[in-house]
């Protein structure tokens, strides 16, 4: 009897000890981000946002009592490297993978996280990402399919345009956006004038801008990555382009404004996330980010930050660190700022991994992004 009691006590102590050891083990979250190459601006901001959130969460006790161990790797804006790093992350036992931000990279790398059944939160916005039936992929921003109709409606209602030129970057992000805006403009009865493709990393936009000037449509829609957006804006001003210039997500981003200087003034864009949003949690994020990095975050910083908080909120909701359970719980999940300030805005996820929340119309005024309208979530209509 005494021996049996002793065994029971020993087993209980062992269970407690291993349980305690497990509680002490950090939760591994891997970031696959563009720290160099054409996506360096996007990836660096995303990474910084994720790091800031991890720091805050760890300072507040972590997730279910366990600290986050966030490590980021550079995809070099290259899909093949992103795929290899995704494989490395799942082999290392990552609970969740954050990134990449570039649509072309996530479209390739997410096959690895899907195979390993690891939830993957991406900053990519190409519509195709969540149309492949991958139950482990989740967005941190609006899909182009949801954002472009809002842009087209704004062009119709506010700019009263009859024709629009479309300047886009020839990668997965730009091609997807171009297809969606053309479809959305068509639905609004707006004619597409010049269709102007540009190349990733393109430096000289003189011929592209000349095409837009020659077309003489009422509005120019610009959909390129950050550096290219800045160069396009500079060239548009250089050639005295006088029509309204509108974009989606990138055009009025912080880095674009910084790089384009005065040329960014007057540019309009629909953005899913902005550090200038007139919301208290976003303002708190903005202050914390600037304090940490001595720079203002663009929308990608908010993507990385909220992604980390999505993981925290939902992991605590399911009560265990289980990738498969987390992915299942994410479908149809709703998170509110009231209960979870880290998510910054009330958000809902659908069964494809797309999210829905308020969005903003912004304009660059005197070198600053100003929110001109707050648009309700699509589900609120």
């Amino acid at each position, binding site marked *: 009897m005494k021996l049996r009691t002793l065994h029971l006590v020993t087993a209980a102590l062992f269970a407690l000890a291993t349980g305690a050891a497990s509680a002490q083990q950090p939760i591994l979250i891997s970031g696959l981000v563009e720290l160099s190459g054409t996506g360096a601006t996007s990836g660096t901001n995303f990474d910084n946002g994720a790091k800031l959130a991890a720091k805050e969460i760890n300072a507040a006790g972590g997730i279910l009592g366990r600290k986050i161990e966030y490590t980021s790797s550079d995809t070099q804006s290259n899909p093949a490297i992103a795929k290899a790093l995704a494989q490395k992350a799942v082999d290392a036992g990552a609970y969740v993978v954050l990134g990449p931000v570039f649509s072309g990279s996530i479209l390739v790398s997410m096959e690895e996280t899907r195979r390993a059944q690891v939830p993957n939160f991406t900053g990519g916005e190409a519509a195709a990402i969540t149309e492949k039936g991958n139950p482990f992929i989740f967005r941190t921003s609006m899909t182009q399919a949801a954002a472009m109709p809002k842009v087209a409606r704004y062009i119709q209602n506010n700019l009263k345009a009859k024709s629009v030129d479309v300047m886009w970057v020839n990668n997965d992000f730009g091609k997807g956006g171009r297809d969606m805006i053309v479809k959305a403009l068509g639905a609004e009865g707006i004619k597409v004038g010049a269709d102007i493709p540009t*190349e990733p990393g393109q430096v000289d936009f003189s011929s592209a801008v000349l095409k837009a000037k020659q077309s003489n449509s009422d509005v120019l829609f610009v959909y390129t990555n950050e550096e290219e957006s800045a160069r396009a804006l500079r060239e548009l001003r250089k*050639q005295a382009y006088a029509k309204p210039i509108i974009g989606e997500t990138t055009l009025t981003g912080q880095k674009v404004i910084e790089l384009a200087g005065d040329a960014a003034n007057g540019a309009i864009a629909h953005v899913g996330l902005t550090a200038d949003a007139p919301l208290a949690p976003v303002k708190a994020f903005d202050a914390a980010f600037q304090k940490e990095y001595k720079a203002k975050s663009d929308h990608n910083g908010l993507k990385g930050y909220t992604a980390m908080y999505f993981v925290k909120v939902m992991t605590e909701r399911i009560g265990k660190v289980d990738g498969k359970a987390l992915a299942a719980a994410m479908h149809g999940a709703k998170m509110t700022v009231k209960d979870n300030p880290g998510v910054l805005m009330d958000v809902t996820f659908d069964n494809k991994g797309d999210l829905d929340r308020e969005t903003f119309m912004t304009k660059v005024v005197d070198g600053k992004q100003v929110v001109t309208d707050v648009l309700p979530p699509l589900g609120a209509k």
Partner: protein
Amino acid sequence: MNDFIQLIVSGTATGTIYALAGLGFTLLWQASGTINFAQGEFVMLPAFIMLFCMMAGAPLWLAFLLTCAFAMLVLGAGFKKVIVDPLIHHGVIPLVIATLGVAMVLKTVVRAGYSAEAQQFPSSFPAGQFSLAGITISYADVGTLILAAAIVIALQVFVTRTMTGRAMQAVAQNTDAARTLGIDAKRMVLYTFLINAILATVTALLITPTYLAKFDMGESIGLKAFFAAIIGGFNQTRGALLGGVLIGILENLVGFYWSPAYKEGVALMLFLVVILWRPEGLLGTAEERKV
């Protein structure tokens, strides 16, 4: 027609910038047999040094002058002393490999110091534009064109009309004969490296407002400058000007009338055509060709 002329003007402005960097290739080749594959990074580094000076409070003109001094010291005299002099006796290949290594080191250092993100760089010319016979021309294009052309012409005059320039040419054509004539060959070669450093700094000043300051900005510039030098003639300083302008204009025309997707391939295509049709370059002379 107006579009065509506008494309020619802006293409010429861009082309003269390629020519400045390409000129460095030809000068170093002629003077010392050095093919500097870090030429693009020699443009990138001064851009960041100027940014550093401006962050410290210097106006652009002062930042430029300070960077010229830095470039002459490090990218001119330092490069010659540390890299070229010890390797030049081993032939072209070790030097080419060494300059490729220098390029990698410079990129890594700048990336570590400034991050991989692009940085804004102010233009040396006022914003705005004017119309001439229905063509919109920016002050920046005109300024770039004038400054770059003035530098190329001044250099041509210096090399052909001054005693020092002629001595440099003599060293480039036949070092032993030049020494026999009492020319300080080492000093002439050093002058060439110093001029190359200044050309790289001027190129950085002109091109960075468009390219944006980024650790890998030199890759494209270096390649186009190299092609410009080959197309024009590696043994002719004025050849780089022709090569650069041709690339600049054709890039614009192809981007506008065909597709921007082919724009980056223009220099390579032109390079291939010239190499096949006239290997010494458009203005080069066959008998002096060393490559």
